[in-house]
C-alpha cells in the first residue's frame, strides 16, 4: 500500500513517469485492439514474426537518422510479403515460412545494430524501457494509436468478416489480401510503439495475452475489442508500477501482469473457465 502511495506521489512529481504512464496506456489500447484480430485469425506466430522482423528497420532508421516508424514499417511489410511469397510458392507450411523469414530478419537486425554500435540501445529495444520515453516517442505513439483506432473503427466489418469467413468475404468482392497486408502494416506500427514499453522480445505477449484473456469473457467481437484494450491498459499500468517500485525491466513486469490476468480468467471466466467447467461437470 505504501509503495502505491509512493508511486502516485512520484507520478505527480516526475515528468518521465507521467510520460511512461501515458505511453503505456496508449500501447495497452492499441495492442489489445490489433491483437484481437491477430489471435482470431490464428496469426499469433505471424504477430511474433512481424514484431521481430522490424529490428533491422529500427537499426536502419537509427543509422540513417530517419523516423523509426518508417524504417520499421518498411521491414515489417517486407517480411510479411516475403512470408506470403515463400508459403505460396513452395510446398512448405506457413509456420515454416514464418520461422525461416523472421529469424533471418532478426539476425540481420542484430548485425545492423552492432554496426550502428550502441549496446545500451539494443538492451532497451529488446526489453523495453518505458521510463526513458521521450516527448518525440510519445507523439509517435499518439499518431500510431490514432491510426490503429481509426483502422479498426472504419474497417470493423471488413476485419470481422475477413477474419471469420474469408471465402465469403472474397465471393462478395472484398480484397482479403489487401486487408491482410493492411493489418500487417498497422501491426508493424503497433509493434514499434509497444517496443518502447515491453521491447521486441515481448511485443507478442502484449498482442496476444490481453486479447486471449478478453476472448474468454465474451461472445461478441465488439466487446472483445473493448475488453482486450482494457486488459492491455491494466497490464501496462500495473506493470509500470511494479517496474518503478521494484526496479524491474518494464517489459517483463507488464507481461507478467498480463499473464496473471490470463491465468485468473482461465480459471474463472464463464466461457471456458476451468473451475466453472469442473463445477458444471459435478452438477451434471
Amino acid at each position: 500500500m505504501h509503495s502505491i502511495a509512493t508511486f502516485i506521489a512520484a507520478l505527480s512529481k516526475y515528468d518521465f513517469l507521467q510520460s511512461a504512464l501515458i505511453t503505456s496506456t496508449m500501447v495497452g489500447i492499441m495492442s489489445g485492439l490489433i491483437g484481437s484480430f491477430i489471435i482470431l485469425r490464428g496469426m499469433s506466430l505471424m504477430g511474433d514474426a512481424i514484431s521481430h522482423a522490424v529490428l533491422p528497420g529500427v537499426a536502419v532508421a537509427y543509422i540513417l537518422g530517419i523516423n523509426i516508424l518508417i524504417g520499421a514499417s518498411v521491414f515489417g511489410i517486407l517480411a510479411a510479403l516475403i512470408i506470403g511469397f515463400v508459403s505460396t510458392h513452395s510446398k512448405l507450411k506457413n509456420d515454416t515460412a514464418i520461422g525461416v523469414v523472421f529469424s533471418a530478419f532478426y539476425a540481420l537486425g542484430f548485425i545492423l545494430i552492432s554496426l550502428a554500435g550502441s549496446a545500451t540501445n539494443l538492451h532497451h529495444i529488446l526489453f523495453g524501457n518505458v521510463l526513458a520515453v521521450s516527448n518525440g516517442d510519445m507523439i509517435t505513439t499518439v499518431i500510431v494509436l490514432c491510426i490503429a483506432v481509426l483502422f479498426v473503427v472504419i474497417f470493423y466489418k471488413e476485419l470481422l468478416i475477413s477474419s471469420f469467413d474469408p471465402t465469403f468475404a472474397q465471393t462478395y468482392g472484398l480484397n482479403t489480401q489487401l486487408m491482410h497486408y493492411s493489418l500487417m502494416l498497422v501491426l508493424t506500427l503497433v509493434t514499434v510503439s509497444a517496443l518502447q514499453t515491453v521491447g521486441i522480445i515481448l511485443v507478442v505477449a502484449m498482442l496476444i495475452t490481453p486479447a486471449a484473456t478478453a476472448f474468454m469473457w465474451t461472445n461478441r467481437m465488439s466487446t472483445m475489442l473493448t475488453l482486450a484494450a482494457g486488459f492491455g491498459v491494466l497490464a501496462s499500468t500495473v506493470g509500470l508500477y511494479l517496474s518503478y517500485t521494484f526496479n524491474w525491466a518494464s517489459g517483463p513486469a507488464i507481461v507478467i501482469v498480463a499473464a496473471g490476468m490470463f491465468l485468473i480468467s482461465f480459471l474463472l471466466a464463464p466461457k471456458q473457465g476451468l473451475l466453472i467447467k469442473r463445477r458444471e461437470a459435478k452438477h451434471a
Partner: protein
Amino acid sequence: MLEIRNLSVGYSAAPIFTDLSVTFANGRITGIIGPNGAGKSTMIKGALGLIKTQRGTATFCGQALSKQRGNIAYVEQHNDLDLSFPINVFDFVLSGTYAQLGLFKSPGKREHQRALAALERVNLSAFRNRQIGGLSGGQLQRVFVARAIAQDADLVILDEPFVGIDMHSEQQIMTVLHEWRDAGKTVIVVHHDLNKVSAYFDDLVILNHGLMASGPVAATYTAANIERTFSSDLSALLFTKGGDQYA
C-alpha cells in the same frame, strides 16, 4: 442465366476438367451431381474466381461474374469455419448485407431489419443472440441460408447444403429454395444424395471430370446417364426399385 464457357482447371498433366461449358437457367433450381472428386465444387469455385483456372469465363446475365460480386450468394461447405469465433447468429446474418453496403458504411436500421427478416424466414429469430458454436448442424445451415437471404442476390449457389442436417432443416431450406426460384433467381445446388434428385431439382447437371449431361431432370436423370457416370450397380439400385419412370 449463369453461363460457364470453356472452363479448365488443374494443370495439363493432371486436369480436373478441360473446356467445360454449361449454363444454368433463371427461375430454376439446378442440381449438380457426380462422383466424389468429379469436380463439382471445383467448377463452382473456378467460376467464382476462388481458385486458379487455366482458362474459361463465367458470365451472369451477360456480364462477367467478377464484375457483379454483390449479386452472388455462395453458401460453401463450412467444415473449416471457426465455430468458437466471437460472433452471434444475428451478426453473422447481418454480414450478408455487407456486400451491398460497400466499404466505409456500417449496417444501419434497414440492414438490421433485413437480417431479422431473414432469420424469421428460417425460424431462428429466437436464436439471434446465440453464439454460432451453440447451434446444431441443421440450425447452423439454416443460419447460412438466412445470410444468403439477407444478401438478396440473383445468383445463389449452395455446396452440399443438406449434409449432416436434420429432416426439418432440410425441408425449411427447400422451402426457401422454392421461394428463390419463384422470384426468378438462379439457384444452383451441389448435391450428392441421388435419391432426392427428382424431388428437389428442376434441372440437372451431371459431372465427372467434364460434362456428362445437362438439362431438365426428366431428360437427364436416366439409368443410362447414372450408369455412365457412376456405376451400373448404382443405376440398377436407383432405377429398378421404385419403377423406372425415367429410364
